[in-house]
């Protein structure tokens, strides 16, 4: 039994995932729960466990593909016909039951998300009758519901077994229509796929995915669309009364289509009955006519093509001179986060320098002892301690702005985010309750979190709940920068590189270890004076590390 595994929503409400690595190949045998692939969403990298036991029949995506949630990623031949065994039948509830049913013989039901199939019962029955796998039919109804016509179209284009475009197109060719129809069908196939995909899914699918992923699905829907238009040349009807379900009426309104003008051959109770695909076909035909008119007026024979090309975005790619990489996954997530922060919080940055010879000595002294406990002691834990001490003195830097309620929320806990550069981009794991931890504990925990961030092995929770962040850009080099606040926090402290630099001491220029500090604040909540006061306090603690004993 072929099980079509659709990409589940692997994060919380993510719309797509990038395939990072396959752990299986065609022909491999997999057990239930065995990891099939790694998928990167805009939040993290997750394992994709197999929902069934069986043999890999086909991989539908390649490494690097961005797969929309709900698309089939792999087909698995399940080992056996599933006859309800003890646990499955007893453990309650229809979902269990459905899953099991799906495994059953020649039923044609493969579970969609959570075993649900969005098609009315008579359509599911028709699908069985025509031998169509209803779960692989692209629905044209409201929200993607599979209609009777969808199933019939799927059956006539070879059903679910293959989505062989060539055969489908030749099917159109064969049809009794004149050459013009055949050529329309083949010309239009690709652009239409992309365009119809965009309009079908609304904002869920961004254009780029429609392009980068001209999936089987869209091919199929293109073919169906093409044959539909081939069959019916929509001339406007003119009726007094038209029957349709409410969602169809709404669609008509959205498409700006007059219900009574939509041609249909279906009737119910003696009245014309219109379904969503009738609306779409009609709306498309109307658009096409409008476009043709426009073309005629501008006397540009290629205007129509140019428009469609612009929509697909393909015209923009020029070989060799630029390469394009998807702005997706973690990159896009970081980007969106930065955008939100900068456009929401007016940033102001305060710079100062701590002279930390004493801290350098203290750390050198403590380092071997920490080593004995298996911990490598960096400067970061000291800075974190100093930051907590300063936050206690300037609590306004440990806040968040609740815009809805117009309140500044003071957090009386100190969870410090540590910005970490990884291959995939910036991650900010959070060390919780820093105020209650010793230097060694902080050091160990920070090391563990940043290490796992680099290995992309962080749980989402480990990047949540921060109250203030630190970014150690100096580890790579540089003195000052303008850190972007880890919104909705209201402040972030950037650390420059620790180096010997000239400082003036008792009127003389001497070399001393210094740590340049860059503090960005959300100026809506925090004023410059508070920022300066905070940094002064941090400096005081860093310059006199014995003060840290008090903390």
């Amino acid at each position, binding site marked *: 039994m072929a099980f079509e595994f659709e990409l*589940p*929503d*692997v994060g*919380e*409400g993510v719309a797509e995932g990038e395939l990072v690595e396959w752990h299986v190949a065609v022909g491999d045998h997999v057990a239930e729960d065995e990891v099939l692939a790694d998928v990167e969403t805009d939040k993290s990298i997750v394992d994709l466990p197999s929902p069934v036991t069986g043999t890999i029949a086909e991989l539908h995506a390649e490494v690097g593909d961005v797969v929309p*949630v709900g698309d089939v990623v792999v087909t698995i031949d399940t080992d056996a*016909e*599933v*006859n*309800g*065994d*003890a*646990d499955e*039948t*007893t*453990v*309650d*509830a*229809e*979902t269990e*039951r*459905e899953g*099991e*049913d*799906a*495994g*059953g*013989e020649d*039923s*044609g*039901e493969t579970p969609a*998300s*959570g*075993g*649900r*199939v*969005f*098609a*009315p*019962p008579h359509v*599911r*029955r028709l699908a*069985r*009758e025509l031998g169509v796998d209803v779960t692989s039919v692209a629905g044209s*109804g*409201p*929200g*993607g*519901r*599979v209609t009777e016509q969808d199933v019939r179209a799927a059956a006539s284009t070879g059903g679910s077994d293959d989505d062989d475009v060539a055969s489908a197109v030749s099917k159109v060719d064969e049809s009794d229509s004149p050459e013009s129809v055949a050529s329309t069908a083949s010309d239009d196939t690709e652009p239409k796929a992309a365009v119809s995909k965009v309009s079908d899914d609304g904002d*869920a699918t961004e254009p780029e995915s429609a392009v980068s992923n001209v999936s089987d699905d869209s091919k199929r829907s293109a073919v169906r669309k093409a044959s539909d238009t081939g069959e019916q040349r929509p001339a406007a009807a003119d009726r007094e009364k038209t029957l349709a*379900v*409410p*969602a169809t*009426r*709404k669609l008509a309104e959205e498409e700006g289509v007059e219900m009574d003008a939509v041609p249909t051959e279906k009737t119910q109770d003696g009245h014309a009955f219109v379904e969503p695909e009738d609306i779409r076909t009609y709306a498309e035909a109307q658009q096409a006519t409008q476009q043709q008119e426009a073309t005629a007026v501008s006397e540009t024979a290629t205007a129509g093509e140019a428009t469609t090309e612009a929509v697909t975005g393909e015209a923009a790619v020029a070989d060799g001179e630029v390469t394009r990489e998807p702005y997706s996954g973690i990159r896009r997530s970081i980007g969106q986060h930065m955008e939100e922060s900068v456009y929401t919080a007016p940033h102001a940055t305060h710079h100062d320098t701590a002279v930390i010879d004493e801290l350098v000595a203290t750390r050198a002294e403590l380092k071997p002892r920490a080593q004995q406990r298996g911990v490598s002691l960096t400067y970061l834990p000291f800075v974190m301690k100093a930051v907590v001490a300063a936050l206690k003195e300037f609590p306004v830097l440990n806040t968040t702005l609740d815009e809805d309620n117009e309140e500044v929320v003071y957090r009386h806990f100190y969870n410090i985010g540590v910005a970490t550069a990884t291959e995939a981009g910036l991650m900010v794991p959070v060390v919780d309750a820093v105020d209650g931890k010793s230097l060694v504990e902080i050091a160990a925990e920070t090391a563990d979190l940043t290490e796992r961030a680099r290995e992309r092995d962080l749980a989402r929770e480990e990047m949540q709940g921060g109250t203030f962040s630190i970014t150690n850009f100096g580890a790579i080099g540089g003195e000052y920068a303008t850190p972007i606040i880890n919104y909705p926090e209201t402040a972030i402290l950037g650390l420059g590189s620790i180096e010997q630099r000239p400082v003036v001491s008792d009127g003389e220029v001497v070399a001393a270890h210094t740590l340049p500090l860059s503090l960005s604040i959300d100026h809506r909540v925090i004023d410059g004076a508070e920022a300066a006061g905070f940094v002064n306090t941090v400096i005081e603690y860093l310059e006199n590390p014995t003060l840290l004993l008090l903390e």
Partner: protein
Amino acid sequence: MVVGDVTTGTELLVIGGGPGGYVAAIRGAQLDLDVTLVEKDAYGGTCLNHGCIPSKALVSATDVAHAAGSAEHMGVHADPAIDMQGMVSWKDKLVRTLTKGVEHLCSDAGVNLIEGRAEFAGHDTARVVHDGEGEGSESISFEHAIIATGSRPIEIPGFEFDGERILSSRQVLSLESAPDSMLVVGGGYIGMELATVFQKVGTDVTVLEQLPDALPTYEDDVTEVVRDRAEELGVDFHFGHRATGWEEDGDGLLVTTESDDGEETFAAEKCLVAVGRRPVTETLNLDETDIETTENGFIGTDSKARTDIEHIFAVGDVAGEPMLAHKAFKEGEVAAEVVADEPAALDYQAMPAAVFTDPEIGSVGMTEAEAEDAGFTPAVGQMPLRASGRALTVDDTDGFVRVVADAESGFVLGGQIVGPDASEMVAELALAIEMGATLEDVAATVHIHPTLSEAVHEAVKGAAGRSIHY
């Protein structure tokens, strides 16, 4: 009566005349199959004789009494007297009408009815055994068989049903008088329904449940409404209590329980044990076929209700959870259609369920958590009944209607309703789910005012982000 060993042939043999069996038989006959139905006890099975129907009859009768007696704030002053015998014989009359009805439906459809117990004698023959001396048996050879032997209550060791003090749900439904006090072991749906019935006839009811709450398959906020109401009525709950033994105590009994706080005893006149049901297969001589039962005694089936043996089907309680009459109906129908070569399958998208407590629970499809687990982004709308005009006028405002949908497509995924007539209200959501209807479809459908179904409408609008009345 056929005596001796005579063999007759049939296209479809149905074993058991409960909801699963009689529906399969009627549907098969409608599709021109030659059908034989064997029932050992009473047509209509558990549901009609000892389950759904009798229990609902008593639920309604006691509701009438209770409502009449507690409507002084509505200006109605009454002190209803309950004649338990009258109530039970009214119920028995209903049951007789319905079982006769089932028998007639079967014979009118052309089903060949045989009374007796059927057991397998091979892959394609069964023997019908008649109880009693000298009744003999007859053999039936069949092309297809549908097993619909149902389920029976689970007995806890030491609490074997004696019909005196330790009662099954079936025995409780036929009590001639209301006991002064009753212990109910088990806070599942049967226990909760019957606890409510008896509390309303004046019995002091105490529920002993081993788990931390009643109705554990439902979400907490759903259960809470029902438990609170039961408590208001006077039902006493003891959770975390496992009944371990009992002894006679005058005309009544003392039941011992174990809990984290140690041993405790509870005294009462009667004790109902309702701790679940188990499938009936031992009446069948299954060994003669290659059908094996699962660990829990069920017969496993595929999406066409087929067992491991191609031409033998199993439907209803014997084929697995959830053990509900309407699930048995559906499976019986599908099995018969598959036998008749129709393109049928068990492809229902959700199995609705109801609990006829006060107030009722009706649920269908996914909860919010289940929707999340299934990979949807749930959009949830909830309408409290205290905001429903109709709920106010029926004087029953505890509870709510909750609708769960997929935020992206708008498809309705599930609903949880607790409140008056929840079992009726849930039907609309069940239809929406089967049709693949979107929130928009239901929201755009006009609902009658003032009705409880408006609460469903309002919850749907809530999920779509545009409620009006709440």
